[in-house]
């Protein structure tokens, strides 16, 4: 028997064993809880929600300031209203992200049978 085999055999014979007999169950339970908790969040990416909302607010502000200046200078209908376009883009972005989040939040395919088996 060469040294490699001696080391391998001796390590294998006395390797540390997981003493927690419920280790697998614990890991699966924590994993399931984490998935469930993440599904409860309204937005997975909170940053995108903030960006979307700020865009909407800026667009509204732009529209408002634009319409005021139009009244003041009385040049209505002489240039395209960029605020409305920005608002539409922002709303489209938010709608797309909401749809995206909706898809992510769909429950995973865990059958009742699988849940019972895991318990």
């Amino acid at each position, binding site marked *: 028997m060469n040294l490699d085999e001696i080391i391998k055999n001796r390590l294998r014979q006395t390797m540390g064993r997981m003493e927690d007999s419920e280790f697998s169950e614990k890991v699966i339970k924590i994993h399931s809880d984490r998935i469930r908790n993440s599904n409860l969040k309204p937005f997975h990416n909170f940053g995108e929600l903030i960006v979307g909302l700020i865009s909407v607010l800026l667009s509204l502000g732009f529209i408002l300031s634009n319409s005021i200046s139009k009244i003041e200078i009385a040049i209505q209908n002489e240039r395209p209203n960029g605020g409305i376009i920005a608002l539409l883009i922002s709303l489209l972005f938010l709608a797309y992200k909401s749809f995206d989040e909706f898809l992510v939040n769909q429950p995973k395919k865990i059958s009742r049978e699988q849940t019972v*088996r895991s318990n």
Partner: protein
Amino acid sequence: MESNLIKRAVENDPEALTKLIDAYKDIAYNIALSIVHNKLDAQDITQESFLKVFINISRFRNESGFSTWLYRIVYNESLQHLKKMKKLNGLDVNLFKNEYYACDGKNALDEKYLQLYDQIDKLNELDRSLITLFYLAEKSMKEISSITGMSLANIKVHLHRIRKRIAQNLNFTYES
């Protein structure tokens, strides 16, 4: 077989997750134990590594093998834990040496076993993790390189030195 288990694990099938855990938990635990030298910490690291793997399993592309991926996470988590422990507590990890490779009563009486453990115990964390990956996890040097981030040549040199040192101390003739 394993790819089927992974497909089912992506769908969060508890049976597939259990099978994956049962297949790899002991080796993963030993890799962590070889680095952190503490049973409870090794168990926590193994648990957290499995959780990381499962949460990202949909991204797994089967390029390196499931166990190699898992062991890489265990290895990195263990090193991070060790750094944190040394940094926070200034703790001497050698305090836990007696917990490592705890063997049952029958083997404990065997002088040869004790000598080997003594030799392994004298190795540093890196060398211990290398022999655990090589002998226990039965990973190739290429896979160990992928897990540890070390070069292939470096791993060869380390393993050669470890074998040589153990052989010398056990009065065993070793030829590379």
